[in-house]
């Protein structure tokens, strides 16, 4: 997804010139792309400078009071919302990959996995569809960091426990079992070295595989 940068929308966004869909795309993209995030931040700084020339306005005391009350009336459930942008970003990435079915599931899952989210958001990544390897294959995709630091495997309707393996000409390494999450199953990995081939097994039978290029 990072190949599709926001371009001129970066400057239009802080001016409020984008429609809802385009604005949302910018917000989601910059959660994943540091280059575009920087460009948007620069445009926001300019927009703030433009605001300096607006006629001054003094907020009423009631506004501050209301804001304080609203803030204090909220539970301090830091974990509830603080991960939202990352989940949203991951959902966006999956939507671009045609995995709309997965987005809500992933959001829930990622809200419980801070490390995964932070890792994904601060990375540039590739994606690949897994090729079927049996008569009863599974639809699955892999998102992976271009630097090889993480791999995220997503399978739709796994139809049973899915076991992931790294495959080389010399050996096969057990990567673990995908965890069920609603209709899907996922697995986040932080491999010590680059994995170039992954195969999924169901009940000992290969059902899908993919090659990762860096």
């Amino acid at each position, binding site marked *: 997804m990072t190949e599709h940068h926001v*371009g*001129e929308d*970066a*400057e*239009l*966004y*802080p*001016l*409020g*010139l984008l429609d809802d869909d385009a*604005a949302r795309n910018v917000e989601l993209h910059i*959660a994943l792309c540091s280059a575009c995030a920087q460009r948007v*931040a*620069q*445009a*926001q*700084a*300019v*927009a*703030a*400078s*433009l*605001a*300096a*020339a*607006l*006629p*001054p*306005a*003094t*907020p*009423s005391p*009631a*506004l*501050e009071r*209301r*804001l*304080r009350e*609203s*803030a*204090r009336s*909220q539970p*301090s459930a*830091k974990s509830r*919302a*603080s991960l*939202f*942008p*990352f989940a949203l970003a991951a959902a966006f990435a999956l939507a671009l990959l045609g995995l709309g079915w997965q987005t809500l599931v992933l959001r829930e899952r990622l809200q419980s996995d801070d490390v995964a989210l*932070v890792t994904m*958001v601060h990375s540039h990544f590739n994606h690949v569809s897994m090729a079927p390897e049996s008569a009863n294959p599974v639809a699955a995709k892999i998102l992976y960091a271009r630097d090889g630091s993480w791999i995220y495997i997503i399978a739709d309707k796994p139809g049973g426990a899915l076991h992931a393996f790294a495959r080389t000409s010399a050996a096969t390494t057990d990567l673990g079992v995908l965890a069920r999450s609603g209709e899907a199953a996922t697995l986040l990995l932080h491999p010590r070295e680059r994995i170039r081939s992954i195969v999924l097994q169901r009940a000992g039978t290969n059902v899908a595989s993919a090659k990762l290029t860096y």
Partner: protein
Amino acid sequence: MDELVEAFAERRPLGLEQAYALWSPLFLSVARHIISDRADAEDCVHDALLRVWRAPNRFSGNREMLKAYLATCVRNEALTTLRRESRHDARALKAARLAPVSAVDAPSVDPVETQRLQGALARLPEEQRIALMLAYYGNKTQVEIAKEVDAPLGTIKSRISMAMRKLHTELVSPEGSRW
């Protein structure tokens, strides 16, 4: 990280209160430029700040970046409100009193910054300056600007984008600072 930024990002009330104390006049100015009604404009500031504070990004920038980000959120909140309520009359009214930077003696949120801004805007190519001012100070959409200046939509986007980037070089980036 800056204490204020850290407090805001961690959703501590102190972060929200400090941000409000420092920048609420700016935020209200941004909102009132779009929404004439004072109470509605204050609602926009309230809603935008609270929404961002409740679900903050993992903000790693500095204080100025947080201010700019929040100002953007307030502006987008106000524009959303405006569009939702279809206050086309209000927009036309605002557009009619376009470009406060042209009124040199008019009071502004930040007179010093306004002077810098006036200089930087004056150095933009005219077509870029007009497109940007119609967008920001006129609260006009891309389509409205394209019609007004009789130029293709893509051209308008490019002009505004270029203008913003030049202003960044002049006003914000250290290497471009002339003051």
